Structures are given as C-alpha cells and as structure tokens.
C-alpha cells in the first residue's frame, strides 16, 4: 500500500464508514462509559482544514484520539460524582485535589480533552492575521505578528516527543508562549490558553511523516482568527473555559 492510497481523502459526508475502508487500520472503539464528558462535535467538516490537515487525520484524531480521552476521563471519574460535576478547566486547575489513585488518568485524559476541544475550536478558518485588540496585544508582547508566528513555530518544532505549544493569556490580556509534554495544559498552572498546536505525531504523521516543520508552518493557514479573538475577549472577561 502506498502513501497515496492512505492519503485518499474522505469528506465528512462519508462519515465513520470511510475508516473501515482503510486496509490494516484496525481502529478500536470501546463503548463509552456513562459520564458527564462528551466528545464535542467538530464545528466544521473533516476536510475544512485541508490547507494543513487532511480529512482522514481530522477524523481519526477527533473520533479516536480525542474520543478515547473523553472515555478515559469518564472512566476515571466514575466514582467521583463531585469531581465529575466540575467544569473541566476547574478540574484541571485543581489537579492536586484529585485523589492520587486517579490523578494521572485525570491529568492525561482531562488535559487531552481540554487541549483537543480548544484545538478544534480555533481551526476551520483561512489563516491570515488577527485584527483589533488581539493584534495590538501581539504587537505589544512580541513586536509584530511575524515575530510571534516565528517564535511560536520554533517552540512547537522544539517539543521533543509528544506535546503541545500554547499561547497563554492573562486576565489583563497579556500573551506568552509555553510548551508542555504529553497532554499537559497551562490550565494546570492556573493559566488560560488562547491557542495551542498539537505536535503529537498522530496530528501530522499520515500527511507529513517526520516533517513536523511543514505541518507547523501550514497550520497557520487554517486558524480562525475570529474564533480566537472571541477567546481573547472571553479571557479578559473572565469567561474563557478550556
């Protein structure tokens, strides 16, 4: 089988059935345990981010990677109704109050759930540059958009192994760049996340293989700056969740 075959594109209309057409790709899906956390619908079709991410990667990433983390979080919190009732961002900010026996499961699955929910939300656009208040904040904290973009991309490329690069935002609207391993999130440090890029290999391997730098460069072309501006406003208003 060639990469070309694997790269065959499947739109959202083809739905889950498309996955079963992939030879050798045996995709496990365990029945979701009952629980409060749900896999959010993608706010666009699987092929909406084609300028950076192929439809098949979108589908596997959302349905199986993110879906698995939703199931894992619900399973970890099965006997913890009080924790399960907390908003996810609050839960992650108070990880040290989670019983030790399930803390790693909540950290990995809860972090993954928050990170991927944010990740889907900020894409589906056509890239470009932010305007207004957010553009001013970027200018203030990084000099200009090009510098910001260069620094963020370098941070994402520099993550060794699985992890994420994030832009954090304070209640005053100040921005910063941080990286995290695994599915950790700045929420675990009490910081809010404006945007983040997933640099686990599953995020790009089918299309880019070892060439992470091409993925992180193209990723800017699918950002939706209107949705990101709304996150920025929410952060300043104190209403931004994950």
């Amino acid at each position, binding site marked *: 089988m060639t990469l070309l075959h694997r790269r065959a594109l499947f739109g959202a209309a083809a739905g889950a059935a498309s996955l079963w057409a992939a030879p*050798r790709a045996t*995709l496990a899906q365990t029945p979701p345990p009952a629980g409060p956390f749900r896999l959010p619908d993608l706010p666009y079709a699987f092929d909406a981010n084609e300028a950076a991410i192929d439809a098949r990667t979108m589908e596997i990433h959302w349905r199986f990677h993110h879906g698995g983390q939703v199931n894992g979080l619900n399973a970890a919190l099965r006997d913890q109704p009080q924790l399960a009732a907390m908003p996810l961002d609050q839960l992650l900010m108070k990880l040290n109050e989670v019983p030790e026996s399930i803390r790693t499961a909540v950290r*990995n699955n809860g972090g993954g759930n928050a990170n991927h929910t944010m990740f889907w939300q900020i894409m589906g656009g056509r890239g470009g540059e932010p305007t207004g208040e957010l553009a001013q904040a970027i200018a203030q904290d990084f000099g200009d958009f090009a510098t910001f973009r260069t620094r963020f991309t370098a941070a994402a490329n520099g993550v060794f*192994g*699985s992890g994420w690069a994030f832009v954090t935002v304070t209640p005053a609207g100040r921005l910063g760049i941080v990286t995290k391993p695994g599915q950790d999130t700045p929420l675990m440090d009490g910081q809010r996340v404006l945007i983040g890029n997933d640099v686990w290999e*599953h995020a790009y391997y*089918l299309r880019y293989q070892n060439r992470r730098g091409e993925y992180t460069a193209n990723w800017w072309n699918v950002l939706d700056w209107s949705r990101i501006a709304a996150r920025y406003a929410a952060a300043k208003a104190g209403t931004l969740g994950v």
Partner: protein
Amino acid sequence: MPFTLPPLPYSTNALAANGMCQETLELHHGKHHNAYVTALNGLIESKGLAGKSLEQICAEAGKSGAEGLPVLNQAGQHYNHILFWQVMQPGGGGDDLPGALKAKIDSDLGGLAKFKEDFKQAGVTQFGSGWAWLVIGNDGKLKVTKTPNGANPLSTGEGQPILGVDVWEHAYYLDFRNVRPNYLQNFLDKLVNWEVVADLLQKGGMKSGQSA
C-alpha cells in the same frame, strides 16, 4: 562522523508481511533514527562528549536531570533504535524461545505469558512517546519497565536492556494508526528475534560499539 547510522539487519520490505511496512522502516530508520544521529554528532563539541561511549553518554546524561535532556534525547534515541532494529526479524515472535532465556523469564518474571502481558502493559501505559523494555536489572534479575521519550534503562540506571519496543507514534502510525495495543501484540507475535534477545542476555546487554 563519530556516530553513524548502522544499516538495518534486513531489507526495508522484510517486515512488511509481519505488520511493519516498507514505508515505516524507510522513514523510521532513514529519517527518524538518522536525524538523532545527526543531532547527536552536532552536540559532541558543545557538550564535551568526545571520547565517550554511547552507553556512557546515556548514563551520564540521565544523571543530569533536565540539564542532560538535550544530550539524552539524541543519544538515548540513537542507542534505543540500534537495539530496536536488532531485536526484530522477519517471521519472528511466538513462543519458541531459546532455553536459557525461557528459563530466566520463567524464574524471574512468572513465565512467558505473564511476561508478554506485562511487556504489553508497559508499552500501552507509557503515555505519549517512549519505550517499553525487558531489562537485566542491577540485581541480575530480569524486569519489565518503560521510559519516556529518549530515555532508556541505562539513563535511568535500571540496568541493561535486552529487548525494547518503540512506542513513539512514528513506530506504528502507518501500520496501526491509534491502536498501539495491536502494534505491541504484533511485535510479540511476529517480530521479536528471540535468538538475539537470548544472545544479549548471555552477554549481559548490548554494546553499541559507538563512541564520540
């Protein structure tokens, strides 16, 4: 160049019938492993590695915590992949182990079936990129362990690895997508070169023969 990419002990299409396709091996060996070798060579001067063996570099970097990570990431991955290529073969795996290895697994690890479950479990539960290992511990007993990213039992001081499986997604994503458990099962059923593992047990570990 002091560190070099060793050739695969089989062709890049040799494992295709056993769950590791040609593209995976071409990329994994020719791109991923090669990039670690190149990066490690680039650190020799700035990090004062000249004259040290690969094994020594891994152990010392592991003791240096966060400060040692830039070296460990590359040196560990070079060592780990050298071992990984050796412990696979076309039509490997299964339950027919050389006697001494079988007896050692029986006495130290509760039998082959138990070992395989524990080894798979180590691979499945290594969150994110990393490795699962069968190690000759410092007490001489076999044990199963796992390490993140480029770390290995030399860098953690846990002993000498004689079997390792790469659970970075690049090792299995083209063949198994997100289903890491199936990759690990396939590795044990169809890929492990038990003769090499038995030989490494007898020798007390792998000597890469590489130094800066």
